[in-house]
């Protein structure tokens, strides 16, 4: 069975139901029911017209639901006036769904869940498994999200994505990109490949809206996804960029990412994702780690720092400076960052990976004892097990060398 086809059709079918008069929440529920039904029956009995099947089943579910709700009985009139959906509007419907599901009134976790279900066509169970929460919890998160956006509407007349200053407007492009970035970057486990799903959704978005940052995010995802096979060892431990077997990088994805990025950069409307993708592209460009153009990478980090002013960016910049101008320069860049973040809030929320970066730079500068101590401290503060194991390894490696 072509599960991907099913997922691709999901936002379109929701759009068709909405144009027939269903409200978004009811349409989305009905399509989810049809989806679960399709997953159950299609393997044995595939339909000839997949979209037609989904529309018929979902519409029937929708009618069942409103018939069951006596207070809404009058809506049955809708059955008599089914407008035939025009194919030209399918793209617009999908685009509106992206904006609705990333509405600024939603929390990030709600926006992610709603996007994966309504735009991505995943079932509640699949999403719950992917994010390691009980199915009932995920179902509640999604229905609360739908109640939150209930007043926004998905009618063809409303929700112009980029119309500024409208209090009820759907999320802007930036919020949609933030949601897709979260799906890509914080994907967990389960039977759904969330990174691949994020790429599919971003690709679909890029096809329906002309925006350099959408292209920038797509390029960024492709360039990072290209390294996936080389990024971890069979036991799940991390392989740092410099030590990855670059022969295992996916050159097709790299070529596509670079091409998309170049076209976006040519538009001269630089944004955060394009700058991040440019850095990834420079890494992809180096056949061997030693051939990396760190000077250009530092320049891109300078651009990024101008665009975001994020301490994480400046931390990564310190690493790049260390490679371009030597570890002493890197440590100086780190000291600058420390000085500017030394306030009460920074103390309560220490910058993740700061000790790991410091350890690396000290090792390059030849101070193995300090590096070993900092690696152990970084391991203690690591935000996940894979990083902790990796950093413990680094500490162990240096301590073994330091033993007489």
């Amino acid at each position, binding site marked *: 069975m072509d599960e991907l086809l099913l997922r691709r059709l999901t936002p379109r079918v929701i759009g068709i139901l909405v144009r027939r008069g269903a409200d978004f929440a009811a349409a989305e529920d009905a399509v989810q029911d049809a989806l679960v039904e399709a997953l159950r029956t299609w393997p044995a009995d595939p339909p000839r017209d997949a979209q037609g099947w989904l529309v018929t089943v979902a519409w029937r579910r929708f009618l069942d639901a409103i018939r069951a709700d006596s207070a809404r009985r009058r809506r049955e009139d809708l059955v008599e006036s089914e407008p035939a959906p025009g194919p030209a509007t399918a793209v617009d419907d999908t685009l509106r769904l992206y904006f609705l599901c990333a509405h600024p009134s939603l929390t990030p976790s709600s926006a992610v869940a709603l996007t994966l279900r309504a735009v991505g066509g995943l079932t509640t169970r699949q999403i719950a498994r992917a994010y390691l929460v009980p199915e009932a919890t995920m179902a509640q998160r999604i229905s609360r999200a739908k109640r939150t956006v209930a007043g926004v509407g998905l009618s063809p007349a409303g929700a112009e994505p980029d119309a500024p200053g409208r209090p009820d407007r759907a999320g802007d492009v930036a919020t949609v990109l933030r949601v897709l970035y979260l799906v890509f970057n914080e994907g967990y486990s389960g039977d759904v490949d969330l990174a691949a799903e994020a790429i599919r959704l971003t690709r679909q978005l890029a096809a329906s809206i002309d925006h350099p940052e959408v292209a920038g995010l797509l390029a960024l995802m492709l360039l990072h996804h290209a390294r996936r096979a080389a990024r971890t060892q069979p*036991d*799940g*431990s991390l392989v740092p960029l410099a030590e990855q077997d670059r022969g295992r990088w996916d050159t097709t994805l790299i070529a596509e990412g670079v091409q998309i990025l170049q076209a976006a950069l040519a538009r001269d409307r630089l944004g955060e994702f394009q700058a991040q993708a440019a850095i990834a592209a420079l890494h992809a460009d180096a056949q061997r780690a030693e051939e990396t153009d760190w000077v250009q990478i530092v320049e891109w980090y300078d651009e990024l720092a101008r665009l975001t002013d994020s301490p994480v960016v400046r931390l990564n910049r310190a690493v790049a400076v260390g490679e371009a101008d030597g570890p002493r320069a890197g440590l100086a860049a780190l000291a600058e960052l420390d000085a500017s973040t030394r306030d009460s809030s920074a103390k309560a929320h220490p910058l993740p990976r700061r000790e790991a970066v410091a350890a690396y730079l000290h090792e390059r500068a030849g101070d193995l004892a300090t590096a*070993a101590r900092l*690696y*152990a401290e970084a*391991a*203690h*503060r690591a*935000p996940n*097990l894979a990083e*902790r*194991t990796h950093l*413990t*390894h680094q*500490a*162990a*490696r240096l*301590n*073994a060398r330091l033993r007489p």
Partner: protein
Amino acid sequence: MAKYLLLKHYRGAPAPVNNVPMDQWTPAEVSAHVQFMHDFAVRLEETGEYVDGQGLAPEGTWVRYDGEGRPPVTDGPFAETKDLIAGWMVIDVDSYERALELAAELSAAPGAGGEPIHEWLELRPFLSAPPTITE
């Protein structure tokens, strides 16, 4: 079937026999330890006895309610806290003896010199639902 929580402590447990901090092991010994932990969980999944396992970051915060309309009071982390949980594993097994057996296996995870750590783990039975038939 009965569920048990296996608790691993950063602090608060009696010292293990093979008591060398992990960053003083060789890299190969670190790898062997990680592999052992991974294999242990996989094996329990295969026997149908694994429920859940998570690691916890060492830094925690104490929090309490401070009255209507006031932000929560926070304190800590306290360096002197006697007991600090590092992580847990939940198992669902047929008997207390089986739970002891599995905890002992986990405690034998290899450490420095490739020798078992003999780490002390805390085994805590879950309070279960009341049975239907009581007489």
